[in-house]
Every structure is written in structure tokens, then in C-alpha cells.
């Protein structure tokens, strides 16, 4: 008995075209993981190390969100939802800057 179920041929063709892209994104993610570990062995100054690591992590996260999560071709409503979420996230990260820590005020660092 066949387990085949009718699928949309045009959609199947579109997905087939994307398979190579998925593999390329995977390779890029693996290479960037090795790069970020390699950089950590150079012992850059703390500020630079944090900046470089976060830039590499953001690039990796963008690849996952853009291609694996299909955000690049997603409907606008999802993008607006995430933009709103990003605004709240930025506010969340700015909020502690007004905090007084054991080392004095958090900002200026």
C-alpha cells in the first residue's frame, strides 16, 4: 500500500529548491560556531570579546530565524509582532541601567 498522499506539486517544487539553502545555512552555523570558539582562545580584551561574540551569535540567530523559521518569507503580521516584541526586549535591557549595584551605578559602566 502506498503511503503517498497528494501534495501540491508547485509547493513541493518550491521546497525542493530550498533544500540546498538549508544545507548551506547549516554549514554556515557550524563554521560560525567553530569561529566563535576559536576567537575565545585569542583572549581579546573583555569588551571586544563580548562585542565579537554577540555579533557572531546575532548573525547565527538571524540565519536560524530567517531560513529555518522562514521569517524572510513570512507574513507581515508575524514581523510586526516580532518588532513589537523586540521593542519590549530592548526596554527590558535598558531598564537595569538605572540600577545601583554593589559596585555603584550600573550606568555609566
Amino acid at each position, binding site marked *: 500500500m502506498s*503511503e*503517498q*498522499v*497528494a*501534495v501540491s506539486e508547485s*509547493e*513541493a517544487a518550491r*521546497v*525542493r529548491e*530550498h*533544500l540546498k539553502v*538549508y*544545507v548551506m*545555512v*547549516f554549514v554556515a*552555523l*557550524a563554521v560560525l*560556531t*567553530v569561529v*566563535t*570558539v576559536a576567537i*575565545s582562545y585569542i583572549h581579546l580584551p*573583555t569588551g571586544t*570579546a*563580548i562585542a565579537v*561574540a*554577540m555579533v*557572531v*551569535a546575532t548573525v*547565527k*540567530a538571524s540565519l*536560524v*530565524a530567517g531560513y*529555518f*523559521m522562514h521569517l524572510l518569507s*513570512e*507574513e*507581515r*503580521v*508575524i514581523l510586526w*509582532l*516580532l518588532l*513589537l*516584541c523586540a521593542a*519590549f*526586549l530592548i526596554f*527590558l*535591557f535598558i*531598564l*537595569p541601567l538605572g*540600577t545601583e*549595584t*554593589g*559596585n555603584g551605578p*550600573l550606568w555609566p*559602566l
Partner: protein
Amino acid sequence: MSEIVIPYRVEPHPLTGVTSGKLGIWLFLASEVMLFGALFSSYVLLRVGSGDSTWPTGVEAGLNVPIGTFNTLVLITSSITMVMSWASLKMGNLGGFKRYLGATIGLGLLFLVVKGFEYAGKFGHGIFPATGWPEASDPSTFYGIYFTLTGLHALHVFLGILVNAWLLIWGVAMWKSEPELFTGRIEISGLYWHFVDLVWIFLFPVLYLL
């Protein structure tokens, strides 16, 4: 008795252009961004407030970078097997779907086993969430936030494995009756799984490398 039909399970809503399930998972993921965001924000606050003498780098604190790197690669690999399982369904290949989703579940379990060994190693050295960093002159909150962030992440991996296992063993019966709805469910489960991968992409450098 009339059956209640949930609208827009397969057909996109005319206003949003997406199915109810997809809108739902993205709203959930937005709330997850805030959950992990709050903890990352706490990490920054704890670290900046502690001073260098009481805040170790991951290596100084005894975390194993090669093991962390290995686990990062495991999770990245599980992300591509997840997207391939969805792509297999889109192409009408049920066998491929089963193999790829099975691999995703296996890789998720491997991640948890490795994480379990890491935790066991720390517990064996008397390091617990409340212990801090034993070598610090003052008690450090490094291990407090380490266990909180990685523990919450591991819980997410565990729940993702449960959902994927359910879809692979029982949910798959829907493929014959409602293939488009089932493919949508795999996409939704995949969005969650990729998000969990995405969180780890930030957790790994923050905790292990910096």
C-alpha cells in the same frame, strides 16, 4: 450534537495571512523571548554588579568548552533535521519525515545526556545552583545564573522532544486524513524547536566563552 470547528487551521486567515496555529506559536515564542530576555538581563546585572574578582569566565569556572561546542553542534544539527522533516512532508515523503524527525529527537536526547553529564560533574565537585563559584573571594552568583539559564533551556529541549515524539508516534496518523494540517503542526513544532536552538546560540558564548 454539532461538532465545534476551529477556523483557519489549514486555510490562512484573510486578515493575517497565516493560520491560527502559526499566529499562536509566534505569540507564544514572543512571550518566550521576554522570559529568556529577563534572565539574560539579570545575567548582565549580576555580572556587571559583581566585579572581575568574583565573576569567572566559563573556563575559569570549570566549564568544558569542547563539550559545550559539541553540544552546540548537536543542537544546530537537530535544527536542520527538523526543517528537513517538514520539507519531507511538503514533498510527500513520509519515510523521510519519520527518519528526520527521529533524528531530531535523538539529537535532542543526546544534548540532554551531555548536559546531564556536565551537571553531574559539577554536582560531584560540590557545585550547586546556590554554591556560586568556589574559588571566588566573595560568593559569586555565576553558577546560580548558569544553572537557571541552562536548566530552563534544558526543560525546553525536553518538552520539545516530548511534542516531537508524540507527533512521530501518534500524531502521524493524521497524515492520511488531513495531510496539510499535519504538515502545519510539524512546521509549528519546528518553529518552537528552532527557537530553542536560537536561545542556545546566545547561551553558549555568554556562559562558556566570555
